[in-house]
């Protein structure tokens, strides 16, 4: 047997330390191939021996804590998101409040208390929008800092300042998009109650509040503005359906509800346009 053939066979076996029977005779007669086979065997071990340094970062522990931590229970005031009358003073009770863990910016924004507060604040905000932007003063205080909550607060401020229904529709459109974006990421990490809260919030914004504002537009304003919102809702509906297809258990249903809310809002706005044209 040729040495090249023997060595190629040794390279191809699963474990070079286990010499195939067909090669034994050659190895016994060829000291060069014996040495070569010994080196090949040692190299496999040396690859393991010269592996990367043992993991010493913090991401593993942070991720473990994220998954091992018990879910937060969020108690909401009963009528925090009612539409037909002024909301009572919103109260956010979070228990038991585990300390916030550093898991990078992307995870920090998923703080469930922020979502819960945002849900309640959105209820207040929608009620505010239905009163054509008349401010009812500060409603929620002392809630944790959270990028998403900041967006909701900003939306409320903008709604209060909006001069007309068109401006309020634009604010609600942005808010709907923010909720959708939040749900897109939250779906992967905290399926369940938080996602359900977001879905409910989304329905109030795009399924109800936008329609209420659109009703206040005249025919010209409807023609000028509604197609843009209809298109946004159509894309949001498709996106939510796609996300639901890949989402973990606990996020699928809320995402489907969000798709239905977007569909409901889209159809309602389209009907308003048709009525105006009729």
């Amino acid at each position: 047997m040729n040495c090249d053939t023997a060595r190629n066979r040794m390279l191809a076996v699963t474990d070079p330390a286990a010499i195939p029977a067909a090669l034994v005779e050659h190895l016994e007669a060829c000291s060069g191939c014996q040495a070569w086979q010994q080196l090949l065997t040692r190299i496999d071990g040396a690859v393991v021996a010269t592996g990367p340094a043992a993991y010493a970062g913090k991401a593993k522990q942070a991720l473990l804590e994220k998954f091992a931590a018990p879910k937060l229970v969020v108690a909401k005031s009963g009528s925090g998101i009612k539409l037909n009358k002024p909301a009572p003073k919103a109260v956010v009770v979070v228990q038991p409040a585990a300390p916030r863990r550093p898991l990078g910016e992307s995870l920090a924004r998923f703080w469930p208390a922020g979502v819960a507060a945002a849900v309640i604040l959105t209820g207040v905000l929608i009620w505010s929008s239905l009163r054509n932007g008349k401010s009812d003063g500060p409603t929620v205080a002392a809630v944790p800092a959270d990028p998403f909550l900041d967006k909701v607060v900003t939306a409320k401020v903008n709604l209060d300042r909006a001069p007309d229904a068109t401006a309020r529709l634009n604010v609600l459109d942005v808010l709907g998009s923010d909720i959708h974006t939040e749900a897109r990421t939250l779906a992967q990490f905290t399926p369940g109650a938080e996602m359900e809260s977001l879905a409910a919030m989304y329905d109030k914004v795009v399924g109800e509040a936008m329609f209420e504002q659109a009703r206040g537009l005249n025919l010209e304003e409807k023609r000028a503005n509604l197609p843009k919102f209809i298109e946004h809702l159509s894309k949001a509906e498709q996106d939510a359906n796609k996300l639901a297809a890949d989402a973990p258990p606990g996020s699928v249903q809320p995402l489907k509800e969000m798709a239905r809310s977007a569909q409901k809002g889209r159809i309602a706005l389209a009907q308003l346009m048709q009525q105006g044209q009729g």
Partner: protein
Amino acid sequence: MLDVVATVSAVPSGLDPPQLRTGQYRVSIDVGHPTGDEADLIRAAQAGDRPAFAQLIERYWDRLYRWLCRLTRDATSAEDLTQETFLKAFAAVGRFQAGSNFRAWLFRIAQNNFVNLRRAMRHNRQPLVPEIVEERRGPVAEALSREALLLVADAVAKLPSDFRGALTLRVEESMSFRDIAGVLGITEETARWRVFKARQKLMAVLAPELLPAGSNESKMS
């Protein structure tokens, strides 16, 4: 995978392959499918049990990270990819088929993440930074000099990532060629060929340095 530490206290006379020395060896037995305990954890995770998934993270983080370090040659990228892999795995664990190989499935997600990262790196023209390796002492390390180990580490780092990934799955994870194929999304034959080529390239670099003069030359017998 079952990890067993075996101690060889003496090598019987007449059985003296040079690679077998006294000392401790870690023997990995690939069982190919989740063990009972692991299958329970996976089922719980599929039902939304987050602490159960945390146990799977605990079980596989270091191995996944080590392999991704091999691929990326950058500890920070490897850490990010490891975290991303587990988050994606959690999102998709509902679709994991009971009875199939969870480890291979997890490494497959990691491989996809790595491919995406490599694509982005190419796009941004940012080279992956070689990471300094740690030398772990053990029977093999003792059998080869420190200089030889550095040669091995350097040669492995210079392998194309496709070959490096396949070789390290074989020698570090003791994966079968079939599982390597599953992880890398290639055929079993291609997996075998990649390991073959990786070993061949390593030997081409190392044999002239580490073998006695004349041992590396082939001859007819």
